[in-house]
């Protein structure tokens, strides 16, 4: 019987935004759901996020921004992942991201954006469902 490999998740705070309540709650929920979770801490540049995702060999990358810099930061992270042939990673976004900005972020490769009021179980189910497909 094969042993199920645990899902590895990197949760990142790109940019200057210091709001970390959401990322910490989600990190704990994912950990309680059996995933291996690494949190980058605050003030990550796109290069640092990509580097950490590579170093930690994660299956999922979650980006959080509440300061309005997502249109600048998220695509740069996606570009960095592509350059390192890492765009098979499931990338999700969260924080304060206006509806209008979501289509462009999805085009850049972010699979889904989870905004305020999202249940952590929704995120857990989404991750499991999407990784089961690959």
């Amino acid at each position, binding site marked *: 019987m094969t042993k199920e490999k645990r899902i590895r998740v990197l949760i990142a705070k790109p940019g200057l935004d210091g709001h970390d309540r959401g990322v910490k709650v989600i990190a*704990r929920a994912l950990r309680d759901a059996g995933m291996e*979770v690494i949190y980058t801490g*605050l*003030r990550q540049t796109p290069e640092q996020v990509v580097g950490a995702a590579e170093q930690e060999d994660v299956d999922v990358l979650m980006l959080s921004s509440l300061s309005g810099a997502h249109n*600048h930061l998220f695509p740069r992270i996606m570009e960095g992942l592509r350059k390192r042939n890492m765009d098979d990673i499931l990338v999700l976004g969260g924080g304060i991201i206006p509806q209008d900005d979501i289509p462009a972020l999805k085009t850049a490769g972010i699979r889904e954006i989870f905004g305020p009021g999202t249940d952590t179980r929704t995120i857990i189910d989404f991750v499991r469902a999407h990784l089961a497909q690959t």
Partner: protein
Amino acid sequence: MFDKDKEEAIAGGFQKWNDQFQKQLAKTPEAKARFETISGLPVNPLYTPADVSGFDYLRDLGFPGQYPFTRGVQTDMYRGRFWTMRQYAGFGSAEDTNRRFRYLLEQGQTGLSVAFDLPTQIGYDSDHPLSLGEVGKVGVAIDSVRDLGVLFERIPLDQVSTSMTINSPASILTAMYLAIGGQNGIGPEQLRGTVQNDILKEYIARGTYIFPIRPAMRIVADIIGFCAKNMPQWNSISISGYHMREAGCTAVQEVAFTVADGITYVETALKAGLGVDDIAPRLSFFFAAHQDFFEEVAKFRAARRIWARIMKERFQAKNPRSWMLRYHVQTAGCSLTAQQPFLNILRTGYEALSAVLGGCQSLHTNSYDEALALPTEEAVQIALRTQQIIAYETGVTGTIDPLAGSFYVEHMTDRIETEVEEYLKRIEQMGGVIPAIETGYIQGEIANSAYEYQKKVETKDRIVVGVNRFQIEEPPPEGLLKVRQTVGELQTEKLRILRNERSGGAVRSSLDEIRRVARSTDNLMPAIIEAVKAEATIGEICDALREVFGEYRGNKSF
């Protein structure tokens, strides 16, 4: 509160009522398995004198404007003057925010509150690589004293008070405000306002730190000392619990960690050679007004009593003004929902009412669209009107501390005080707030509370209307405020012009002086004031300080 015979009669009556209550429960169980405040404190079906036995009116409440200030810090409270209606505002360029400031003043707000963007708060100029995408987004972009001048154009600084939410660069913004005052013939002693300058909570919950803790605390003490000598109407610090509450802590933790921070600031100031009565009257505080109505009122009353006792007994302050906990309140941003946003008007209304019944000196009410964006003019107008309706229409301001004497509220006030003292003891045993931050203890307590709350919402133990109950299908929101993307370019151009026009030599020598003073034990404020006058930028001044002090590295625990 009552004599022994009466108390026994009441206890007997309570027994009878409780028997009836239990019989009722057997027929129709209570709506919930456990009734508790949003912070987890138990809530009984009924409170009677038995719940405040040992209550001593003169010792525990006293009178407004008198120790221990449970009933309010001013003798006349809102009978004399309402709290300051002070809406936190800022976005885009100084021109954009100046327009919003003048709008708010026209609409009847009575004090200014400045929101700065993240590059400004973290000491980066708008053209720094780390500023890309962030300029003007969460507040106004300020790079130099010229920007601050534009920010306050047509606003008489001798007639309006200004609160600036700025921490790591608080010294620089204070110096800039002094400079703008000076340019308009207004002396330091005439300027009224506050700088937040509460660096400890940045490491705990807010994240706009620059330097390591100890050098940062030295700067805080320098500001407090400088303002005590030169700016008698200026609050040199706003010791804050709001942000820790937003990060998810309970009401008890909010008061406990804020008071612990306050103790640390007083100790730091005393170690720097300042006298407690020289600085304490100008310490101010900042709390949230969250959703559990009576818990919040009790929280504010408990906080006043706790601080008064600490200042009088522990720090031996002699000036009654040193014992007063004066504070600003903001209604809880974390209670706002993106779903059915008009409901936020009600949430803010109830929260604001608890702040007023709690006796705040200053109040910001959130706008209904703020779970989604910075507020539009229409939304912030409603938020301001919310305060005006409480002030002018509800009648609650006609008497002081009207909830005093409520068995529930007095019991809760006592309960919160007791729980807070537990935390203060524990933090003391750890060696104080700084070790408690370095070990991650405070951050962990906050994260635990945040996680507990999330679980309660997800199990529907706590209902959030519109989110986990009474949901509707909604179209995407429209008409939200959008900050123009070009602010970064605008600021970059302003910086180019600034660097051309100012004296490079004067800037360089002023930065040399800052580095020299930073390495000494002298007060940094005079050197920063000179650098600001020479039109050094926030980024340049902070870089000079970074060279000497280094930078703080946050951790990765959750």
